[in-house]
């Protein structure tokens, strides 16, 4: 919040109808011609404007190599919005947005282009009243981060004048191991102060993920059993049904664990396992998340309790799919993992001895992300064995996507004269109880960047701790064996099933 915000007599915390609206500001997108920008960022900007959450005079500046005029850029945004926006297209909203749209053409080396960008920003401050407040969204491959950030510094674009702000927004991957992540952080923090750097992990912008905190800490029902006395184990899954598509260049050498476990799954683990924060502000949340990530302990035998795999040719949902090693641009001898499953434990009083199984993969059965908290069996059952034969373990499943919601699974008597208990599920679905479409993650996150609210962004320490967890596993994999093959369209390699079976457990079919 800017200083003028607090002084505005029309703003009142008790007035809950007035939306959290961003102060005067603008957004500069580097790599504006990319997929992310067209499919997510531009539609999110429009949706925000349509919901009346952007300030009058909000400006959007695109920076890319393409030889475009402002009008071409506006046309591109227009098409992207029409194709991908969540809310209906309204001409008057578009008219409001288009006034602040600019395009700057240039390379990342091009000093002249950065000077142009500077004068564009100064011009926008004058004609649109953006007040010097700009966020720079680096939607570019990670190898260009240092270059762009240094250019911003060199041309004085990162300098915050009195009462205004400049922010940097960066996307994953935040490095490929601890050392590279620290280097990247150093480069970025040399130019932007750490509280003005926003790392996007779009999972944290999802309603279902934010709801984990509400579910755990706003209710009394779950927290008393949210510990080692009742929980048997936790499974966190993120499965994709697609292959690597055209991303061979990015994906090979990175792999599923670095791409997904390091950020999304460890963040989900942190939210699921952390202690109650003292308040819901960014510092308190980060403190608890850091604490629990710091308590994560890897298994002794990495060979037994981690599994990696590569998808082999097969049929996925009625379509023939090629194997990873046959994909265009992939070295047939590549050892990159497209599936990774690891077991970790958390060394604290609440979780000691409770395994957390994390798995992710491409070309699996279907696209799904969920957190399943599986409870222990009843210590004693008055029913005889045949009556409870079909009874599984109680579970609470947070469905992150798709079909967002929460499922509780428990046993119930089957109607009839005989005593027979079978699993049933009780379901909460967002679509049923709340709005037909929740805001997209990027809408929420962009608005938070403009408001300077860093609740939903992982911090430097969290990123570095996550690498500390993953690095030993990656190093072990580098030296030992090679990825197991699994048929496309199945739920991963048999080794992963064996990993759980050794302890009498099995993966949930999500």
């Amino acid at each position, binding site marked *: 919040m800017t200083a003028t*915000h607090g002084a505005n007599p029309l*703003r009142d915390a008790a007035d809950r109808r*007035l*939306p959290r609206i961003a102060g005067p500001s603008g957004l500069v997108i580097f790599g504006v011609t990319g997929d992310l920008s067209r499919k997510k960022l531009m539609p999110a900007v429009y949706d925000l404007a*349509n919901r009346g959450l952007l300030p009058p005079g909000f400006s959007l500046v695109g920076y890319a190599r393409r030889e475009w005029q402002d009008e071409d850029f506006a046309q591109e945004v227009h098409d992207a919005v029409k194709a991908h926006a969540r809310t209906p297209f309204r001409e*008057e909203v578009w008219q409001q947005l288009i006034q602040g749209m600019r395009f700057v053409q240039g390379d990342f080396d091009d000093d002249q282009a950065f000077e142009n960008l500077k004068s564009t920003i100064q011009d926008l401050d004058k*004609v649109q009243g953006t007040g010097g407040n700009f966020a720079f969204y680096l939607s570019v491959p990670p190898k260009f981060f240092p270059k762009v950030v240094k250019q911003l510094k060199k041309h004085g674009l990162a300098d915050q004048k009195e009462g205004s702000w400049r922010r940097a927004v960066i996307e994953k991957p935040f490095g490929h191991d601890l050392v590279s992540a620290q280097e990247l952080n150093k480069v970025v923090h040399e130019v932007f102060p750490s509280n003005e750097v926003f790392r996007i992990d779009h999972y944290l912008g999802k309603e279902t993920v934010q709801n984990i905190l509400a579910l755990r800490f706003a209710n009394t029902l779950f927290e008393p059993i949210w510990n080692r006395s009742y929980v048997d184990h936790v499974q966190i899954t993120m499965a994709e049904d697609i292959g690597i598509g055209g991303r061979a260049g990015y994906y090979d050498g990175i792999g599923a664990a670095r791409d997904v476990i390091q950020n999304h799954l460890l963040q989900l683990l942190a939210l699921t396992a952390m202690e109650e924060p003292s308040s819901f502000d960014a510092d308190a949340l980060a403190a608890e998340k850091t604490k629990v990530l710091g308590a994560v302990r890897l298994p002794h035998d990495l060979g037994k309790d981690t599994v990696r795999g590569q998808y082999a040719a097969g049929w996925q949902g009625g379509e023939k799919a090629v194997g990873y090693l046959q994909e265009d641009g992939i070295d047939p001898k590549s050892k990159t993992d497209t599936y990774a499953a690891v077991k970790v434990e958390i060394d604290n009083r609440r979780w000691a001895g409770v395994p957390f199984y994390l798995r992710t993969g491409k070309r699996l059965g279907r696209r799904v992300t969920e957190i399943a908290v599986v409870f222990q069996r009843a210590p004693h059952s008055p029913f005889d064995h045949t009556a409870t034969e079909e009874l599984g373990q109680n579970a609470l499943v947070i469905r992150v996507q798709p079909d967002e919601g929460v499922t509780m699974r428990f046993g119930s008597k089957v109607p009839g004269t005989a005593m027979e208990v079978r699993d049933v599920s009780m379901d909460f*679905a967002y679509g049923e*109880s709340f*709005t037909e479409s929740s805001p997209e993650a990027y809408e929420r996150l962009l608005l938070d960047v403009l408001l300077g609210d860093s609740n939903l962004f992982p911090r430097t320490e969290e990123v570095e701790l996550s690498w500390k967890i993953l690095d030993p596993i990656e190093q072990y994999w580098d030296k030992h064996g090679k990825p197991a093959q699994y048929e496309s369209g199945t739920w991963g390699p048999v080794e992963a099933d064996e990993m759980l079976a050794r302890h009498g457990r099995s993966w949930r079919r999500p």
Partner: protein
Amino acid sequence: MKIDLTDTTSSKINKALVEGRRAIGTPAVGMVLTLVLVTDEENAYDALRAANEASREHPSRKLVVVKRFSRSARDRSKARLDAEVRVGVEAGTGETVVLRLYGEVIEHAQSVVLPLLLPDAPVVVWWAANAPDNPAKDPLGTLAQRRVTDTYAAENPIEELKARAAVYTPGDTDLAWSRITPWRSMLAAALDQVDCKVTAVRVEGEELNASCELLGMWLAERLHVPVTRAVSGGPGLTSVRMETDCGPIELRRSDGSLATLAIEGQPDRAVALNRRETSELIAEELRRLDPDDTYASTLRFGVDRLAAADSEKSGDSAQPAKKAASTRTAAAKKAASK
């Protein structure tokens, strides 16, 4: 699916609801509230359509209470309840029961509605027409956490505003107030852009539109400055002009859709400010069910303390304006001394 019940009771209606749900194969209910919609036959169709659209955001059970006043004395003495139960596609999201009340039972509508409320879920009553003088004391109103009236539909909106202020109870709200949320939001955003002190305000809009008065009262209450109400041809609100110590700020909207924000020393900017559908207003009302304290303090500020602009000498404040100005100056001083 639709089930018609003639000369029926609430318990038969409940049974029909369960049957309907079974028949369409969705026995699970995910509805978050009960919306009781009180209307006459004339407004029933439009009001229900708005409620159905709003239910896409807030799945609800909608109970439409239509009071049918009979002409003959004999019919009036006979009580009868007819119901139309709709589930599935015809009911938006959730379920709809249209209740038609004849004769004596009109006076006891709450007895019909009470057994049909969803267990443990909030209740909202919306009077699309003929709101009672005291919503919180109305038999149907007492069932609800949230009571929605619409001064726009009233015969004499200004008098109605005064009456609402006199009986305000936490949980009361009015669609004339919901209508101005985008304006309030934009005006607040305009003041975010500058660091100036507002000295006077002029609100302009069509006659007999309580939204203009409410916006004026809100501004006067928050800013502690004299506010003048001027009349224009509409549609709805047409302009708000704030005089500040660094020049005027004006938000103008002549076509009911795209507005212009003019701030001294800055170029004019187009801002989207569409007049909203009733369904959007209802959806906004249902988003929060706690008392709206801002509405309360705005309403209690009092319509009489707004000054009317003299239409002949436009802009020149007339006698009552001066009076209002002097009282507000005192308030402003008080605020400044805090």
